[in-house]
């Protein structure tokens, strides 16, 4: 699956559009990653555990979007965008969307 944020795929011609595909995941932020976060809030800096958690969450949302596109018979997704939002205290949603297309 080729993914781009651009509205085209280099070196390939788009032959079919399948419309919007989406993928989202809601993950709890307090899942064993909080042990050092308290300490880090004193000295500041990067919270590696949370960086990884958010990356995993984003990968999962992307995978779901890709699965939807595959089901439609697409082999590329163009104009991909991500959005993150706080759903409730302790939970974050990562949302991925784009346009599924078929390229030659």
């Amino acid at each position, binding site marked *: 699956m*080729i*993914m*781009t*944020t*651009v*509205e*085209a*795929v*280099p*070196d390939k011609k788009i032959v079919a559009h399948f419309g919007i595909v989406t993928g989202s995941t809601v993950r709890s*932020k307090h899942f064993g990653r909080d042990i050092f*976060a308290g300490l*880090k*809030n*004193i*000295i*500041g*800096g*990067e*919270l590696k555990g*949370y*960086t990884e*958690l*958010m*990356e995993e969450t*984003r990968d999962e949302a992307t995978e779901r979007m890709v699965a939807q596109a595959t089901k439609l018979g697409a082999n590329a997704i163009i104009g*991909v*965008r*991500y*959005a*993150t*939002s*706080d759903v409730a*205290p*302790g939970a*974050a949603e990562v949302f991925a969307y784009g346009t599924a297309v078929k390229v030659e």
Partner: protein
Amino acid sequence: MEAVVQLIVFAILLIIGFFFGSNREKKHFKSILERQKKYAHIATRTDKIRDVSPYTEAMLVSGSVVIASDYFKNFLASIKNIFGGRLNSYESLMDRGRRESMIRMKEAAIKWGADEILEVRIESSALDAIGIEMLAYGTAVKRRK
């Protein structure tokens, strides 16, 4: 007695926050500057691309970081919050987080062998009571040789 202990703990946290926090921030900014120079040859663009003919291959790349402020700055900000106005300490936090995420995106692009990154989008979201997440993503492309 209890109040005194609490006050001492508070003071210690402030001091730790001040020294470790500003030290780490200085180091971080130094490493950001170094890496920004190192990866300066990768052009990043945010504009809409209509013509992709100069490129041969594309891949989605992203970089992210979750970053938190230190105890001292949080305390400073909470006091400033009463009077309103600019919160300089948070400005530098946002700045370093954003630049770090851009660098990580570039690193991912270089690993893949990219020449440019097109239509870059930068986003931030507050993870409540934890910190701020910065995300940069775009389309890494290889130029036609």
